[in-house]
């Protein structure tokens, strides 16, 4: 199946084509990398760090993300409560005792947010990581093998791509009576790979006829090793970007699912908090401390990931740096 390599598609969970920042890396990265490879891997890594630390977008995103990681790790130490425990008066505004106030049921919002943060990161890492792995496996296989394997895998990719991720997740999750954070992450990963597979397949397609791949094949190197040693390193920068984007996408998809009441049954999550706030009329009662923090945290984390993505794109792709 022919498609334009110039415009790999954006990740799900991101309401945009998001083609261009990724596109430029996609086109230029293999070239840029093969040039840098002459300098040796160590020198190259230093170069990436050098430019990354001077890129304001990447730094800003990194700082925000690290801030939330730290809050997620340290935050729970400052609370003795369980997330759904009734600990205080209901509808208490933020104050010295309950830092982010309490819910209608007298649950501590701060506790819910810091614990929900952990769930959010877990879902994002699991979902985004699994989607990236699956996408890589299918994309590399389809792009490198070609022929009927490619036809079948591409058809499969296009079919899963056309089925809306959330719609499929809803019916699967609704039938699961007990759901954990891990199951949620895995489910999101299982439906989140198609756009990654498509983009990686397209790039592998252009790489597999290059001389160094031919050379490796002539010297009798196995397929798996060629993909691992010759092809994957040439799009390593692109793979990093894909991982960041699918991390953010998985967080958003997770939040949607949780907001529908299909989040983990055994843990507190940010999306579930918003679901509870809306279900129990927090809006009408003006309990802003119940529904503003969870959404704000998600927005800030995902924005931070996007900023890191754009920043890293400029780092990997010298052509973008001057503009």
């Amino acid at each position: 199946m022919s498609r334009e390599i110039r415009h790999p598609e954006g990740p799900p969970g991101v309401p945009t084509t998001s083609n261009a920042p990724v596109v430029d890396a996609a086109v230029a990265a293999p070239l840029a990398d093969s040039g840098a490879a002459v300098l040796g891997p160590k020198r190259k890594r230093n170069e990436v760090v050098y430019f990354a630390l001077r890129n304001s977008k990447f730094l800003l995103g990194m700082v925000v993300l690290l801030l939330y990681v730290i809050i997620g790790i340290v935050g729970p130490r400052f609370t003795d409560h369980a997330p759904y425990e009734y600990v205080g008066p209901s509808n208490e505004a933020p104050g010295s005792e309950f830092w982010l106030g309490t819910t209608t049921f007298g649950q501590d919002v701060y506790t819910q947010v810091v614990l929900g943060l952990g769930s959010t990161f877990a879902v994002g890492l699991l979902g985004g990581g699994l989607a990236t792995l699956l996408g890589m496996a299918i994309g590399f296989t389809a792009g490198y093998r070609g022929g009927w394997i490619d036809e079948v895998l591409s058809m499969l990719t296009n079919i899963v791509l056309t089925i809306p991720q959330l719609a499929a997740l809803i019916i699967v999750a609704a039938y699961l009576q007990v759901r954990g954070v891990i199951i949620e992450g895995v489910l999101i990963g299982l439906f989140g790979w198609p756009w990654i597979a498509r983009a990686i397949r397209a790039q592998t397609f252009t790489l597999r006829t290059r001389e160094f791949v031919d050379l490796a094949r002539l010297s009798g190197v196995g397929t798996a090793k060629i993909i691992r040693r010759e092809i994957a390193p040439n799009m390593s920068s692109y793979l990093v970007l894909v991982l960041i984007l699918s991390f953010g996408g998985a967080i958003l998809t997770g939040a949607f699912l949780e907001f529908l009441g299909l989040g983990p049954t055994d843990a507190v999550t940010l999306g579930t908090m918003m679901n509870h706030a809306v279900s129990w009329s927090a809006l009408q009662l003006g309990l802003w401390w119940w529904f503003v923090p969870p959404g704000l945290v998600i927005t800030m984390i995902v924005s931070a990931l996007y900023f890191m993505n754009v920043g890293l794109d400029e780092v990997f792709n010298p052509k973008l740096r001057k503009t």
Partner: protein
Amino acid sequence: MRRYFGRKLLLYGLTFFVAATIDWLIPRFMPGDPVRSMLARAPQRSPAAVEAMTNYYNALFGLDVPLWQQYLNFWGSLLQGDLGVSTWLPGQPVTDILVRRIPYSLAVLLPAVLLSWWAGNRFGAFAARKRWLDNTVLPIGYILRATPEMWLGILLVWILGIQLNIFPIAGAYAFSLSPNWTSPVFLRSVFLHWLLPFASLFIVMFGGWAIGMRNLIIYEFESDYSRYLQAIGAPQRLIRRYAFRNAVLPQITGLALQLGVIVAGAVVTEIVFAYPGLGLTIYQAIINNDYFLLQGAFLFIIVGVLVANFCIDIAYVLVDPRTRTGMQGGTA
């Protein structure tokens, strides 16, 4: 061109087949028994009564015949438009409920998608050539893209609906009114109820399209034809117009690829605003464990997405002459 559409239709046919099969598979092979979980809510507790009800429901849902026959029966009734009977609104066919809800979803979705696409592209192309605009639009665009639609909806309801009391916060029209499409009071109420759900979808999508277009335009300015035109001294407006026309193509493909995300955003938005479309129906089905309704809604969404995909394919052929001559273009 025939080949192009042939391939597309084959893909859509297969997609529908796979989706319908998933729809059939999930209730039968997931852990847990939907009939039992439904009975768990029934007041009857005596074993004999539970036994009788289990048998009744198994027969009602056709679960008492071999699997292959269940699968054939499923397709048989599906092709007749029969998606089963709702358990949440007892006795009402799922198809009827969903068909009633669809106009509301479309009324919010279609204008939001088309307008945000058009306005976002225009604005993105405009921002690409103004440095100060570019420096402000880009970060705002990324933040908008990262905003979960339901949170934006929650903020809009809370600030505009409850604090400032400008907009109604639930339903498709005021509860005190009965539908009457000629009365101006009713039409005004419908419009006010429609505006916020529309706005929250529009805003998030607008940011995405604007960023996409801005990036693509810059990309096009770097390409050979732009440089050549610049070199021979063509007017800036002409170059911009050419760049825009080229950049629109991947944006059209992007629209097709984003349909799944758009659907997700619409579902959660409808819930926040209690807007009685498909999304709210799905939520009610989840709360009430109405699996038939849920599965029917899934199929409705799939069909909607496939139809939308096909419309976009046609649009692509109209916009990109290369697909008409069968040369190239048009992502398969």
